C-alpha cells in the first residue's frame, strides 16, 4: 500500500506493507542511510529519529502509524538549534570512535536538549541509556551534552 510521509520537510511516497518499520523505508527504500540498524528490537537506539520532535526508535515504528507527523533524521538534525549545538559539541569533544552508534546518540541527545535545555546527570542517564555504544564513548557523550547545554542559552 502507498504511504506519503513527511521526512525532513518534504513528502515521500512509498509503496510498502503498512507494518514495514520506518527504519527500512528510510535506509532501503529512500536511500537515507544515516539512520542505522543495530538490533531491530528497540534495544540499542542506533535507529533513533525524531517524530514530531520526540526521539523514537524507527526499527519498531510501523510506517502506517506515522500519518501526518514530521519525521526528522540525522541528515537534517543540523538544521535545528539543539541538533547543531549537539553536533558541534560532539566535534569539539571528539566523541566519535567507529561512529556507527552516533547518529542515534545525536538524535537522542538533541531531543533531550530541545525539551530540557539544562539536563542533570540523571536526566542524561534517562535520555541516553537506551543508546548503546559498543566503542564506549559514554564518558565523552556526557561531557559533550553538558558542553552543548552550556553553549545554548535557552536550549534553542
Amino acid at each position, binding site marked *: 500500500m502507498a504511504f506519503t510521509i513527511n521526512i525532513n520537510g518534504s513528502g515521500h511516497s512509498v509503496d*510498502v*506493507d503498512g*507494518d*514495514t518499520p520506518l*527504519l*527500512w*523505508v528510510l*535506509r*532501503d*527504500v529512500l*536511500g*537515507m*542511510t*544515516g*539512520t*542505522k*540498524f*543495530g*538490533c*531491530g*528490537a528497540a*534495544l*540499542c537506539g*542506533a535507529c533513533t529519529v525524531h517524530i514530531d520532535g520526540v526521539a523514537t526508535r524507527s526499527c519498531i515504528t510501523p510506517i502506517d502509524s506515522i500519518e501526518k507527523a514530521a519525521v526528522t*533524521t*540525522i*541528515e537534517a*538534525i*543540523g538544521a535545528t538549534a539543539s541538533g547543531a549545538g549537539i*553536533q558541534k559539541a*560532539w*566535534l569539539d569533544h*571528539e566523541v*566519535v*570512535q*567507529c*561512529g*556507527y*552508534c*552516533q*547518529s542515534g546518540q*545525536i538524535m537522542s541527545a538533541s531531543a533531550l536538549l530541545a525539551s530540557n535545555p539544562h539536563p542533570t546527570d540523571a536526566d*542524561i*542517564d*534517562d535520555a*541516553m*541509556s*537506551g*543508546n*548503546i*555504544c*559498543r*566503542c*564506549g*564513548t*559514554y*564518558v*565523552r*557523550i*556526557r561531557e559533550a551534552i553538558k558542553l552543548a547545554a552550556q553553549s545554548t542559552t535557552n536550549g534553542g
Partner: protein
Amino acid sequence: MNLDRAHADPDDTNLSRRGFLASAAMAGGGLLLSLALPFGRSEAAGSTDFAPNAFIRIGSDGQVVLTMPYVEMGQGTYTSVPMLIAEELEVKLRQVRLEHAPPNEKLYANPLLGVQATGNSNAMRGGWKPLREAGASARIMLVTAAARRWRVDPTSCRAQDGEVIHDATGRHIKYGDVAAEAAQIPVPERVTLKRPEDFKLIGTPAKRLDAPGKVNGTVTYGIDARPAGVKIATLAQSPVFGGRLKSLEDSEAKAVKGVRQIVRLDDAVAVVADHMGAAKKGLAALKIEWDDGPHAALSTAQIAGQLEQATFGPGTVAQNSGDADKALAGAVTKVEAMYQLPFLAHATMEPMNCTVHVRKDACEIWIGSQAVARVQAMAAKAAGLPPEKVIVHNHLIGGGFGRRLEADGAVRAVEIAKHVDGPVKVVWTREEDIQHGMYRPYWFDRIAAGLDAQGRPVAWKNRFAGPSVIARWLPPAFKDGLDPDSTEGAIDLVYEMPNFHVEFVRVEPPGIPTAFWRSVGPSHNVFVTESFVDELASAARQDAVAYRRMLLDRNPRARAVLDLVAEKSGWGQPLPKGSGRGVALQYVFGSYLAQVAEVEVSSEGNVRVRRVVCAMDCGTVVNPDTVQAQLQSGVIFGATAALYGEITLKNGRVEQSNFDTYQMLRMDQAPVIDVHIVKSAEPPGGMGETGTSLIVPAIANAIFAATSKRLRKMPVDSNSLKQPA
C-alpha cells in the same frame, strides 16, 4: 599477540634505506613515493627485494595522499598515521589524506602481523619509524627541488606549512608547484629524524579527521553500500553449528510484498527482497526444519569439562625457568586456584553484512573489513574465481574488535549472491549476528604458586587449556604446539618470578568457532595472572599495591605506572562499606598499563563500577587524545565483559540472541574514567586493546576488596555476592 617476538621493535629493521623508499613522477605532475614497511617475519626482513606496500603521493595541488593497509575502525588510525608523515613533511595535518589500500596480501602486509590486517593494536607500532622517514625524505626532495629552481644552496632553504622558503630572498613556493621536479631528485641516502622535543604535531591532541562525516550521517559503512539495483537479503543459518537444512516450506514467505526470491543453501536459507523489512517478514514466514547434526546435544558445561580435564596435562611448555615443582614442594605457603573465562561475542554495533554482485566471470564486493586480502581470497574460492577477478570495495567499519578479521560473512554472502541476478546486500539480524559469531574462546586455567616465609613468590606454575585461533587464522605462526597469541600475558610477566613454569594445552572445542576478540590472548591471561597475584598478596597478608611493587625492582617502567595509579586513585584511603578498590598491572602490546577500579557491591550482589583510574606508559604518544579515548573505550568494553559477557550453548544452540540477553554496559552504568599518561621517548606501544584486558582483573580484585569474595570465573555472578538476609 606479538606475532614476531624476535622482531618486535620496528626500529631494529636491517633494511637498507635504499631498499625502503623509491620515488617516481606521477601522471599529471607530482611526486610519488613508494615505501616498503618492514615485515615482521624474519624471512621477509632478510630479503633485499624492494616490495613497496605503502604509497605517498604529493599532487600538483599540494594534497598529500597516503595509501596503506591499516583501516579505521574507531581507533583513530586515520588521524595518527597522517600525523607521523605530516610531522616530518612539515605540512598541516589536514593536508594529508589516508586512503584504503586495495587488497593485495603481498603489497600491504602489516609489518607486525605479516598479513594484510588491522589488529593487534599495531598501526602505530609498525609505522612509527618508516612513516616519519618517508615524510622526511619527501621534504628533503621538495626542498632540494626548490633550491635547484632558485639556484641556491638547499641548506639555506627550509620547509614550513607545505611550502619551501628561502629566507634570504623571501621567496617561497608551495609543495605542489615543485612536486614534479622533486620526483627527479634521488631519494636521500639517509635522513635525520626530529628529536622528540622538536615535535610539533606528535604528542599534541589532534582532531580526528574522520569525525565530521560521522556526526551528520554522511559517511558510508559497509552496510550503507547501495550499488545500483541492489536487493536486500537476510538469512537464517542452522541454529546448531554443523547442522543442515532438512526441509523448507516457503509459499507464505514468497507471498510477502517485496519478497523476490528464497535462496536455499546446505546449511542456511536467505530471503531476498526489495528492503530489509520485507526480507525479515519473509524470513519469519518460512517454515524451516533443520537436521541438527553431530552437535545437537552440545552444552557449555561439556566444553568446560573437557577443558578442565586437559589442565591435568601435560601441555606444551611455553616458558620455563628454574624448577617450579621442586620450589613449590619446598614453599612455606602454597596457593592453588582454577580460573575460567566464557565464550564472548563481538557484537559490533554494525551487524555483519556484505554486499556482493556475482557475474559470470567476476565478482564485486562491498564490505567493511579489517582484512581485505583475506576477504578477497576466501570470496574468490567461494565464487570459483581467481582472486584477481574479485574486486573488494572496503568501507568504514562500525566496530571490528577482531570480528572483521574474519571472512565468513563475505563467503556466506557470495554463496547467496551466486543464486541472485544482480547485486545483493546480505544483512544479518542482530540475533543471527550473536548466534552465529566466531567467539572469544572459553579458557580453563589451573595455577599454583609457592611463597617463602616473607610471602615472596618462589614458584609459579600455570597450565591452561583452550584453542589456538592462530592455528586456524595464520597456520605458519602455530609452531610446536604454541602460538604467540595464546600465551601473551601468561609468560614474560612484569614481576620477578623465580622457578616459573607455564604450559598451554591446545583443545579445540567442538561445535563452536572461535576467533580473535579485542585484547586477544591477554583478554584471558591477564585476568588469570593479575587475579592470582592478588591472591598471593592476600595469602601473604600484604597490600595489593605494595606486594606488586616489591616484585618490580628490575622493571622501572612497570613500577612507575603502578606508583602513578596508586597516587591518582587515592589508594589506601577509606571507602564506605560494600565498596572496594582493585589494582591490576600489565605489559602487553608493547605498553605498560596500571589500573585501579573502584566498585560498589549492593546487598543484592549487584556490582557497580564507579570509577577507573588508568596510568599508561605507551612509549611516545602520537595523539594523546586518542590514547585517552582508546583507554576509555577499552575499559567500557572490558567492563561490559566482566559484568555481563557470556555466550552459552544449550542443545548445540547459542542461548543469547540480542541486547536483552547479551547485555552491554550503558550510559547509566558507565564509570568515570581518568587517564594519566607517563611521558616517554620509547617507541609507541599499542593501546586500542590494553584497557580491555586489564579492567577485568581490576574489577574482580575490587570486588574481593569490597566483599572478601574471590571471583575466579567471569562474568560476575551477582548471586554469589548476595548477602544473606
